[in-house]
């Protein structure tokens, strides 16, 4: 039973790496996934891949838009420590390998991403010693993203490059509420996370983001080996960006929503866990319809201690 709980915890927290600290153009929101009765610290390494097709309108609207494709690759070191029985801290240290191709021209933007720190507190929880078939847990908290990532000035235009740079140049704050309900080995998790963005030094402000998800999971145990398949839906919604927040220059060609169908699994053995997931956009309207999410997948390895 402990292994199953552990496994669920790992898989759930793995969802935290869905965080996309760079793709303002990708409606990248932040979520913590399912957070059941986890009780151990861990450190992990995760890889995340996202791709998009973009149509960049020409200055003259009568001309055909330019087409580009963006690839976001994130390698992230992350982990969790308990600071008390009810409070856990998470830290995320990403490194980005981003690429944009326009025709035969390829632009690479590599570098450290923005560091995030999260704190979650357990608000409701079925007692550990309860011999219950039904168990639930409500966790709420928040986080802070610091502008530590590689970031370039965009004072002389280059708004195009904002979404592809490894860092955002902004301090962002997040609120998160997360509920997990389990019946024996099966369960559902639902969560909502809201990211409050601030403006960068040049007054550009990404739109605030809302991420919501609903997932079902089932724990299969074979001796010490546990597999946790999961499937569900995830939605990312983003408000419009501001080209200049002080002057309220709203960029109405930014923001929008992407709805993903998600499927994945986590395998867990001893103190090691492996997590894989794939997300397929099933509905979207982003960047005024000019940005299309294509692929979103991630894989992670975790070590408990």
């Amino acid at each position, binding site marked *: 039973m402990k292994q199953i709980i552990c496994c669920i915890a790992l898989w759930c927290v793995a969802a935290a790496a869905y965080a996309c600290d760079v793709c303002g153009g990708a409606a990248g929101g932040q979520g913590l996934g399912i957070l059941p009765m986890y009780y151990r610290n861990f450190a992990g390494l995760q890889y995340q891949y996202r791709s998009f097709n973009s149509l*960049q*309108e*020409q*200055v*003259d*609207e009568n001309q055909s838009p330019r087409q580009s494709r963006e690839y976001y690759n994130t390698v992230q070191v992350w982990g969790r420590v308990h600071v008390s029985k009810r409070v856990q801290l998470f830290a995320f240290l990403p490194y980005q390998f981003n690429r944009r191709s326009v025709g035969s021209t390829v632009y690479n933007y590599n570098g450290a991403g923005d560091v995030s720190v999260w704190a979650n507190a357990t608000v*409701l929880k079925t007692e550990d010693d309860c011999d219950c078939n039904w168990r639930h847990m*409500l966790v709420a908290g928040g986080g802070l993203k610091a502008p530590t990532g590689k970031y370039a000035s965009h*004072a*002389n*235009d280059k*708004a*195009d490059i904002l979404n592809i740079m490894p860092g955002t140049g902004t301090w962002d704050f997040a*609120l998160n*509420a997360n509920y997990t309900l389990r019946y024996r080995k099966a369960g559902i998790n639902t969560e*909502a996370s*809201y990211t*409050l963005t601030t403006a960068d030094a040049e007054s550009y402000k990404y*739109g*605030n983001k*809302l991420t919501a998800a609903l997932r079902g999971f089932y724990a299969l145990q074979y001796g010490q080996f546990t597999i946790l398949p999961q499937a569900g839906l995830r939605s990312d*919604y983003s*408000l*419009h960006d*501001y*080209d*200049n927040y002080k*002057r*309220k*220059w*709203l*960029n*109405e*060609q930014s923001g929008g929503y992407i709805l993903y169908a998600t499927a994945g699994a986590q395998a867990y053995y001893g103190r090691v866990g492996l997590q894989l997931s794939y997300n397929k956009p099933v509905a979207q309207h982003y960047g005024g319809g000019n940005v299309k999410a294509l692929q979103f997948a991630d894989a992670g390895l975790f070590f408990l201690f």
Partner: protein
Amino acid sequence: MKQHIQIAIIAFSIIGVLSACQKKDDTPAQPAKVVINVSSPVSGQLYRKGDSVYINASVSYISELHGYELQLKNKNTGTVLYASDEHVHSDAFAIKEAWLDTLSTATDLQLEITTEIDHEGNSSQAEIEFKSQP
């Protein structure tokens, strides 16, 4: 249970407020207030084959501009000899470009700079005429 419902209502209310309508600058498009100062080339200036024609201009406006298009044309035939465009989201910016004069016949040239005020087709234009003499 009542407490949980209250928490949920408060949470959704907070999200609703945070996601409410966004404030924006509603300044109406006023093309007449776009100022385009072209410092080079100067009207009537004569260039020779092999010269670089430096195109320098400053643009300003009372609110956000969205970019500019630039075309250097043969005034008589309308043939475009050089063109460029750039998205610029600012109320003031500079244009610095260059074109190498390779013309082998005397040509009347026209430089057109069009600034885009918004994405609804509002724009403002400046023109400069000059000559190329091989």
